[in-house]
């Protein structure tokens, strides 16, 4: 693959010409980014209100509000820059993968100490990100081991504190995105993006990083190796949302890719076909938490899904990036 990319680099006069970035920057910002954060703020508001009336982990109403809010986050979580990154907000919404089991440890410690941070949203926001966000709430709602710890009143206070914190966080992102948006649509000396190219690079990076995360982390972690599959490492497996996250992220990324490739109909069509295949494979998979990756047939299907995402990545890096004259630069998944 590296040699292929290099080869492309020699053929294409990358970045040497100016493209008018303004229409695409405006479209992605106004039509893709801002509505997602508005939707997230709405859904988390419902969650925070619901949990005040009903903090019973098994409650259908609570679980439905949780699910809708988590859906909204997954559909926005690839936009992990600017106001989403400020104050560690993205991490605080969903701390995953949790390779050292920080989330259960942190929650158990809160329960054991009856940590009073649950009484104040400002204080809870200062606690470890591992005890905040949707995956901490998932443990409280779906993990039987959590339901056995401490007393019901404290657990209820903790559930409310986590939901309130999520809502607070979503509101802050939504508000800040409104004021941050001009930085993307009007890059220049007053913006962190010095040029339209730099703003475009940020958006393109969000697309490629989102694809990388879904393929290598959301699918790669439970797949493990053929000899040693790791179904227990699937994202949000306790609420059986693992596959759903793959599907939602692909739908969101597909929308973004279509907007980024708007001026290049052939590439847009290639991307659309590849996304349609991946989304179709996700939707026809009957394995919500990737529990079947340790069976030969189950594994083949998840691998096929993963390969269809690799295909999208290939089109993005070989066709879209060079044609737009931008590269993905560095992302947070660099490193080990």
């Amino acid at each position, binding site marked *: *693959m*590296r040699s292929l*990319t*290099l080869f*492309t*680099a020699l053929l*294409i*006069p*990358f*970045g*040497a*010409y100016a493209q008018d970035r303004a229409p695409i920057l405006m479209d992605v910002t106004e039509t893709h980014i801002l509505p997602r954060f508005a939707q997230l703020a709405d859904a988390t508001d419902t969650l925070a209100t619901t949990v005040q009336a009903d903090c019973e982990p098994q409650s259908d109403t609570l679980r439905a509000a949780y699910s809708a809010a988590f859906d909204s986050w997954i559909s926005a979580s690839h936009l992990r820059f600017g106001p989403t990154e400020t104050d*560690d907000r993205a*991490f*605080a919404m969903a*701390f995953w993968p949790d*390779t*050292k*089991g*920080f989330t259960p*440890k*942190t929650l158990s410690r809160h329960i054991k100490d009856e940590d009073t941070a649950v009484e104040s949203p400002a204080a809870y926001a*200062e*606690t*470890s*990100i*591992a005890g905040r966000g949707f995956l901490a709430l998932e443990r409280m709602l779906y993990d039987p081991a959590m339901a056995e710890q401490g007393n019901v009143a404290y657990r209820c206070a903790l559930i409310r504190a986590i939901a309130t914190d999520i809502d607070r966080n979503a509101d802050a992102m939504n508000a800040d995105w409104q004021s941050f948006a001009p930085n993307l649509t009007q890059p220049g000396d007053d913006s962190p993006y*010095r040029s339209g*190219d730099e703003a475009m*690079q940020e958006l393109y990076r969000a697309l490629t990083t989102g694809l990388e995360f879904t393929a*290598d982390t959301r699918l790669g972690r439970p797949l*493990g*190796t053929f*000899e*040693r599959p790791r179904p*227990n*490492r699937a994202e949000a497996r306790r609420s059986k949302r693992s596959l759903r996250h793959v599907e939602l992220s692909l739908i969101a990324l597909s929308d973004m890719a279509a907007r980024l490739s708007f001026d290049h109909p052939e590439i847009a069509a290639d991307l659309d076909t590849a996304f349609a295949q991946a989304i179709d494979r996700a939707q026809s998979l009957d394995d919500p938490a990737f529990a079947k990756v340790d069976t030969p047939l189950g594994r083949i299907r998840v691998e096929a899904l993963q*390969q269809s995402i*690799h295909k999208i*990545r*290939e089109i993005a*890096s070989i066709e879209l*990036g*060079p044609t737009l004259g*931008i*590269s*993905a*630069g*560095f*992302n*947070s*998944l*660099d*490193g*080990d």
Partner: protein
Amino acid sequence: MTKLFTAISALTLSIAGAAVADAPSKADILSTYANIAEAKFDDSLIAAKKLQAAVNALIADPSDATLNAARAAWVAARVPYQQTEVYRFGNAIVDDWEGKLNAWPLDEGLIDYVDASYGGPSDENEFAVLNVIANPSFELSGQTIDASDITPTLLSDTLHEADGIEANVATGYHAIEFLLWGQDLNGHEAGAGNRPYTDYVDGDGCTGGNCDRRAQYLSAATDLLISDLEWMTAQWAEGGDARAALAADETAGVSAILTGMGSLSYGEQAGERMRLGLMLNDPEEEHDCFADNTHNSHYYDGLGIQNVYLGSYTRIDGTPVSGASLSDLVVATDPSLDAEMKAKLASTMKALGNIKSTAEAGFAYDQMLERGNEGGEALIMGGVNGLIDQTKTIERIVTLLELDQIEFEGSDSLDNPDAVFH
């Protein structure tokens, strides 16, 4: 359209060509880069041999004095090694190898006794409390392992990454660190691990049990560190594979320098190593947690990034190594961008220096991580923000030098290019 683009592109290139008349050649820049790598790895080897001598003295005659001397030698050995980390990302030969030396974080219960608060086997790792020092025989993936002799081969071929789990770190600096310091049980209070020298006393007076096996382990891990560093130093010598890989494609070689700088700055150091610990408020989530040496670990990582850009490194015996640099190349095309890069690297070093000097004055890195500790948070975020900010300028240099269609990838994809698209 394409024709027009090509024409403009050719024009831009020819203008750039005129401007870079005084620029150093890529070959010269790569030669300096490789010379500095060779010097850094050789310095790491020299320092590791001093560590080995100190470890041998500790095992021969355990005392507070010999234990402290071994600890001091370990801290000194980290100074040149951390400066090599900028070579990881971008040079597959380094990245494929470094996990044997510097893997982190680790489930140290694999190696030796741990406190009850550490917990038992986890969802992620069945071997989190294997304790090979106490167990001459154990089951691993359905096989009985004979660990009656703790040898370098047992550590590198069987125990390291046992069960395919990265947290099973059996070799390298952090395994040795754990054997010299033990767990840091001070939480957010001051103080590092406090392993007594009596953990190495043979016979009566042995604490922690199995002192002979602990000494065997420490000795084997130190031997491995040396053989691994010898191998890497040879790769950077004249005629070595690491140099050959860079020379094979000079443009890709220059890109490798920038990839190393950017990936270490952003995803690795600013993200995984610094910001995550702060967000988790976890005192163990620091790079050199047993020794409380994290402030140095971060500082010398940052220094390595800076000296690679400037093409100038000072060896541990004071000898300078310098030559044509990436900075010279950028100056020839866009002096203001070079000034921006230098200023940002310097401001990162100032921020990392603030962490280091504050830690040395007694405010330990694990205290800085404590929930609600605003001074600590400001110090660490100063370093994180500097590293993120310098990554932006590294990207601008990539664009300036027209290296921007060469894929940047993290370590996983460098290990195994097929993992990206297969």
